[in-house]
């Protein structure tokens, strides 16, 4: 090889990242659209899946990309849900504005909680994150004049989207609104993960000492990612407030945080696609199996999780990825 062609082979990607991102985003839009057509009676469930998808994507950013251990991620989701709900009750009824409010509330909560838990790492970090979500849960319960306490925040009735599409009884508008949002956010996050900043975060996850020896101050980088993650979770919270018209205390609970982690690990923590796959599988299972038998539901989730952790350490997403590799007859592209 000449030195010019060596240089080119170093620079080029095995698969062009942009086109595979585009295909992925399109696939989500198509699958989401298909679900709308095929399951018109389950739009309530589908919308809850969308909201959870934002939440798990947000967790993927900090846990899967940066390696931060948290079991209290619902503080950001809850902040978005309560903020959007509260502003709507107060008269700001434009749904897009409410999504922005949710994103901002989530981002602020992300920055504040991040500033606390990112001071530590490992087990102390995990414990701090749990303490934070318990604290916020108690606070939301106490501040019943704003949050409705244990009765929930009710009376959220947003105006039509863009003044054109009213939220209907069947949840069609809510679902399509959420789907468009998810596709947009996903496309942005894909770019973020591939950016220099995304590369830096993956470096931090693997060896902080090495990154610091390159001259990187780790803490501010993590705070930034935590803030972005908070905005994404906040959008999910705002979406559920808009779609269901109520916000309950469970949106800022330890249980919801833990479920997000289960969904993420199930799908594959280090991949945005994994976050989506894990969410869809978990939420669908929960809906159908837990309705039939709550005991079996927990047993099946437990068994599934053990199987994934033992046999598919990179989660369910590695299943189709492996298949694709066989199909192409090539190697995996490790850098993505």
């Amino acid at each position, binding site marked *: 090889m000449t*030195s010019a062609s*060596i*240089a*080119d*082979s*170093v*620079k080029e*990607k*095995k698969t062009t*990242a*942009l086109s595979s991102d585009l295909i992925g985003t399109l696939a989500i839009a198509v699958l989401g659209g298909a679900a709308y057509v095929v399951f018109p009676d389950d739009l309530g469930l589908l919308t809850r899946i969308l909201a959870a998808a934002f939440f798990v994507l947000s967790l993927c950013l900090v846990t899967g990309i940066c390696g931060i251990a948290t079991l209290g991620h619902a503080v950001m989701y809850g902040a978005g849900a309560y903020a959007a709900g509260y502003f709507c009750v107060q008269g700001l009824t434009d749904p897009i504005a409410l999504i922005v409010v949710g994103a901002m509330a989530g981002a602020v909560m992300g920055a504040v909680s991040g500033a606390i838990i990112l001071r530590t790492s490992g087990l102390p970090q995990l414990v701090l994150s749990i303490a934070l979500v318990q604290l916020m849960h108690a606070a939301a319960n106490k501040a019943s004049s704003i949050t409705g306490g244990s009765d929930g925040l009710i009376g959220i009735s947003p105006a039509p989207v863009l003044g054109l599409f009213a939220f209907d009884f069947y949840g069609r508008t809510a679902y399509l609104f959420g789907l468009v949002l998810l596709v947009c956010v996903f496309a942005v996050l894909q*770019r*973020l993960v*591939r*950016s*220099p*900043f*995304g*590369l*830096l975060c*993956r*470096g931090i996850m*693997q*060896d902080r*000492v*090495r990154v*610091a*020896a*390159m*001259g*990187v*101050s780790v803490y501010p*980088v993590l705070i*930034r990612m935590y803030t972005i993650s908070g905005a994404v979770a906040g959008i999910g919270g705002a979406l559920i407030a808009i779609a269901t018209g109520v916000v309950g205390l469970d949106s800022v609970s330890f249980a919801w945080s833990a479920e997000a982690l289960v969904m993420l690990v199930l799908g594959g923590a280090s991949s945005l696609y994994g976050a989506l796959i894990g969410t869809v599988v978990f939420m669908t299972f929960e809906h159908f199996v837990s309705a039939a038998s709550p005991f079996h539901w927990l047993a099946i989730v437990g068994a599934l999780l053990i199987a994934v952790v033992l046999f598919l350490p990179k989660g369910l997403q590695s299943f189709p990825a492996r298949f694709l590799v066989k199909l192409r007859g090539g190697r995996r*592209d*490790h*850098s993505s």
Partner: protein
Amino acid sequence: MTILLKVEDLSRSFGGLIVASNISLALESGDRAALIGPNGAGKTTFINLVTGSLAPSSGRIELAGKDITRAASVERVRLGLVRSFQVSRVFREMAVRDHVALAILQREGKSGRMFGDPWKIAAVASEAPAILEELGLAVVAHEPVSQIAYGQQRLLELAIALVLRPKVLLLDEPAAGVPRGEARRIEQALARLPSDIAVLMIEHDIDLVFRFARRVIVLAAGRIICEGPPAAVAADPHVREVYLGSYANGSRSV
């Protein structure tokens, strides 16, 4: 010649074990120095103290005339004080080429960019392939570290340090664990470094030390026991004694 790194009376101990005892040392622009000494002499500890990953119990460190004794370690890197690690510290699940890209981005102040392909940034696109080729890593550029040989990881460790464009470069046994053929590449890469930077290399391979260094510093039990041109140091009976293992307590001085 301007003094780039000046260390005065640096000391540190772990419990009762003295690992740095009043070490004073200056590196000038263009210096090619080697730090040698038996296992456990405190060579790596010296780098840790200078780069700020360990706090000295006393002493003073100056980088290009600036007191950095209390500066955070990342600040020292930004001022041009770069180290490599004795045992490669690289990202197991990251492609070889992305390590170099990340280091270049950081040097250019662009590692925080939240959009765009790192490989579209001019400095990365022009420098990364060149350094990878120079160190023989171009063939594994797309492989994650977990898939490459240990010798190649050592070379990657060096590549990261080089692209940071240090003023003062501290190399901790860069050739240890590297097969002979590839060790040559390390020497060639070091020979092509800008002549005005100062390099201090810890190395056990005496042949390599002789080819590289114009000055050798011998450390034993946390103390500098001898310093001078390679030939003079090699002829020093006390140094020979240390390397033969009869050196026991560091109480004698040269």
